[in-house]
């Protein structure tokens, strides 16, 4: 299916939504309104949970903050509902920012549990704060008016609700395909990977969290002015899990999943409410929640992915065009060869009582390939983590291009021009090769959330795509840019990581066991690539490797570590003849 066809389908869907009230009965229109309102909350959950990997049970309370804000402003203070909207967004945004700032550093399940806790706290707040009607709620909320046109009836507010929803979906769609959106999608790969391409993972999480709260706030505002009444009940944790259920049943990784899930659950609920009293006239209320919970559990047990991805398997794929050749992204000037690029000065790192790195000093000179070797447990990986900022040093200094980067955050070191790969490959298996490499361009591009959502980033995006495509071609993976990274064999995944690192236009490339798991031919190709990076582009490379033949034939100099200390340094031939090295390391084989 081409892009044009896809657009036509989308336009047809919008027209269908617009025409719906003409042939639906009033009750169905009301149901559609609820679907739209719930889908907005679910859309927020798709972003935070499906895309960002953070499960929130507390979205209902964000909806509640907004609903109460606008109810207070319009019903009790007689302000316009539009002022209510402003207040709702500001207050919700503020609360979400504070809650997010506090809780988003937590690991997954702690974060989710905290959403239950503050969800409950906010719920009890609604019921107990004086002036908000306690558990009786706030009645007589005025309708939204546009000019003198009051949106009283279901058919009228229908258009506002669905216009808001469609706009929110379009903006989210743009955002996910932009620079910051890719960072959002990468969050599930773990902080270390995200930070290694210069992304401030915490900032992305926080903004995603606030966006999802604001979507819930929009929904709460619409809810308050549609029902014209608010009370605490619709905003408790039970509802929070209902929204989560909508997002997950629909397919929490997909924007459309929010609408599909909201529609399905709302209609199902309606049906169950009609049906259960026939089966169990006395216990219908209790059974409803039992039935829903049981259905949700069954769904989570057997069909976790949700409806949208299941249906999508049977639909034609959208054809994607290879990136066009455009003006490349600006590049750094590499330092003159032979200068001191990186200086590690008496670096120390202790784990408990164990000195993993003990007073190690060495230099990396621009334009060279330096190999760091040593037996397992010698502290090479720890040394790597100190250089790239993944671990704080216990003592000593690391200087890169004459600025002290000791204990700097990883992302700043990455932005300064250090790009790395990981011993245990960290890619996003469900993103395409191109998208994975595009992550590498993050620090070289600027477009923020607004530009991305509004689609004002296209020129820069074209450049970044072109750059990513060039890097894919350079490492030899250019033939299928839209393949999913998870489908590559492990060896090629390592190569893909190198392409991602190269897309950052680094000064220093730091490779952790790049040849592990490669076949002999692939190793030769890799060595050739690394050589050409050094010889043709003056790129400096630091690598840890176990494969001696690979190291000896490739590097200019070697640093040997054993038990946390440096035991030798020099050219390959010198190191090979060093007695201590032979004893500790090479002696066993040669």
């Amino acid at each position, binding site marked *: 299916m081409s892009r044009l066809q896809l657009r036509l389908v989308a336009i047809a869907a919008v027209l269908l939504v617009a025409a719906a009230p003409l042939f639906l009965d009033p009750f169905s229109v009301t149901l559609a309104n609820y679907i739209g309102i719930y889908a907005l909350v679910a859309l927020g959950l798709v972003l935070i949970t499906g895309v960002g990997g953070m499960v929130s049970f507390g979205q209902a309370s964000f909806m509640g903050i907004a609903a109460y804000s606008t109810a207070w402003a319009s019903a009790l203070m007689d302000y316009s509902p539009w002022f209510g909207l402003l207040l709702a967004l500001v207050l919700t945004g503020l609360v979400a920012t504070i809650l997010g700032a506090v809780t988003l550093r937590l690991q997954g399940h702690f974060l989710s549990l905290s959403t239950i806790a503050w969800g409950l706290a906010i719920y009890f707040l609604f019921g107990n704060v004086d002036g908000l009607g306690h558990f009786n709620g706030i009645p007589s909320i005025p309708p939204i008016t546009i000019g003198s046109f009051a949106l009283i009836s279901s058919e009228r507010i229908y258009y506002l609700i669905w216009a808001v929803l469609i706009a929110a979906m379009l903006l989210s769609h743009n955002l996910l395909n932009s620079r910051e959106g890719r960072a959002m999608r990468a969050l599930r790969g773990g902080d270390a990977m995200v930070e290694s391409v210069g992304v401030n993972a915490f900032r992305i999480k926080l903004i995603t969290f606030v966006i999802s709260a604001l979507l819930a706030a929009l929904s709460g505002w619409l809810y308050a002015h549609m029902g014209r009444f608010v009370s605490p009940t619709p905003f408790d944790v039970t509802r929070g899990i209902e929204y989560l259920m909508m997002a997950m049943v629909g397919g929490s990784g997909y924007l459309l999943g929010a609408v599909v899930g909201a529609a399905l659950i709302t209609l199902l609920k309606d049906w169950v409410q009609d049906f259960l009293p026939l089966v169990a006239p006395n216990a219908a209320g209790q059974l409803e929640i039992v039935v829903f919970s049981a259905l949700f559990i069954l769904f989570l047990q057997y069909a976790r992915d949700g409806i949208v991805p299941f249906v999508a398997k049977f639909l034609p794929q959208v054809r994607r065009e290879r990136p066009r050749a455009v003006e490349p992204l600006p590049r750094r000037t590499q330092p003159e060869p032979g200068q001191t690029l990186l200086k590690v000065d008496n670096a120390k790192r202790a784990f408990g009582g164990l000195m993993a790195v003990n007073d190690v000093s060495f230099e990396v000179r621009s334009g060279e390939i330096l190999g760091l070797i040593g037996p397992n447990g010698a502290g090479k990986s720890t040394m790597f983590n100190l250089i790239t900022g993944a671990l704080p040093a216990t003592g000593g200094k690391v200087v890169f291009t004459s600025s002290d980067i000791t204990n700097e955050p990883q992302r700043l070191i990455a932005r300064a021009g250090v790009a790395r790969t990981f011993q245990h490959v960290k890619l996003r298996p469900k993103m395409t090769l191109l998208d994975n490499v595009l992550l590498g361009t993050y620090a070289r591009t600027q477009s923020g959330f607004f530009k991305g959502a509004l689609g004002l980033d296209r020129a820069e995006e074209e450049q970044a795509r072109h750059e990513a495509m060039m890097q894919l071609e350079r490492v030899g993976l250019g033939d299928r840019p839209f393949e999913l990274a998870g489908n590559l064999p*492990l060896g090629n995944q390592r190569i893909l990581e190198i392409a991602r690192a190269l897309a950052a236009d680094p000064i220093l490339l730091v490779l952790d066991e790049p040849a592990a798991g490669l076949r002999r031919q692939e190793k030769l190709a890799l060595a050739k690539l690394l050589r050409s990076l050094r010889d043709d582009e003056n790129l400096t490379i630091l690598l840890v490797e176990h494969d001696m*033949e690979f190291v000896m034939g490739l590097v200019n100099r070697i640093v040997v570590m054993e038990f946390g200390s440096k035991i030798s340094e020099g050219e390959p031939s010198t190191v*090979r003849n060093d007695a201590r090295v032979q004893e500790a390391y090479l002696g066993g084989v*040669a």
Partner: protein
Amino acid sequence: MPLLAIDNVSVSYGKAEAVRDVSLQVEKGQIVTVIGPNGAGKTSLLMAAIGLLRSTGRIIYDGRDISRLETEERIEMGFCLVPERRELFSDLSVYDNLRLGAYSRRAASGEIKDDIAQVFDRFPRLLERRNQMAGTLSGGERQMLALGRALMARPRLLMLDEPSLGLAPLITREIFRIIASLRDLGVSILLVEQNARAALETADFGYVMETGEIVHSGSADALMHDPRLIATYMGGSEVS
């Protein structure tokens, strides 16, 4: 009758077949090795043999078809695996790790203590570290603990997945020396290795696996001198 016969075993992940119709045998008292490049399906084969991965085909151990048994039941029959990732209990002491190694035997504590003492005899380094948490051990020590823990089950057949992985050559040699000594103890061994030369030097018989299939087999000696294999598997990772 072989102690272990893997008979037409296949393993698939979704559409991709990681192991295709593999058959091999381990005779009592033998060390048999499966060599091959990364991604050949060696680990999947072992995981299927122990029952951690679902597979088709038959796995016959000591004359009995164990294909439908749970992993734990296979362990109780003296059929054990030291996996590639070692899977130690990082927050338990070395001693407790060893003690749990004998869990499947339900033996008296005196007998277990004797066995632990024997493991310490074999691996004096572990004795030095007996009260240390397993998570604080170095790579070589971890491999020794993984081996020692497996021996605590008094296995009759021990499968070792890449025991040299991530170890420096000196330690690798030490580990292979220990593996060879296990044979004298009466333990049969199925050894999966990327380090082809070291594996063949230790083994009696070898299989070569590539992209999910057995492509060669023969006595370890014959394989070691097979010029095609030398070119493919033994040229790569040696210094000299």
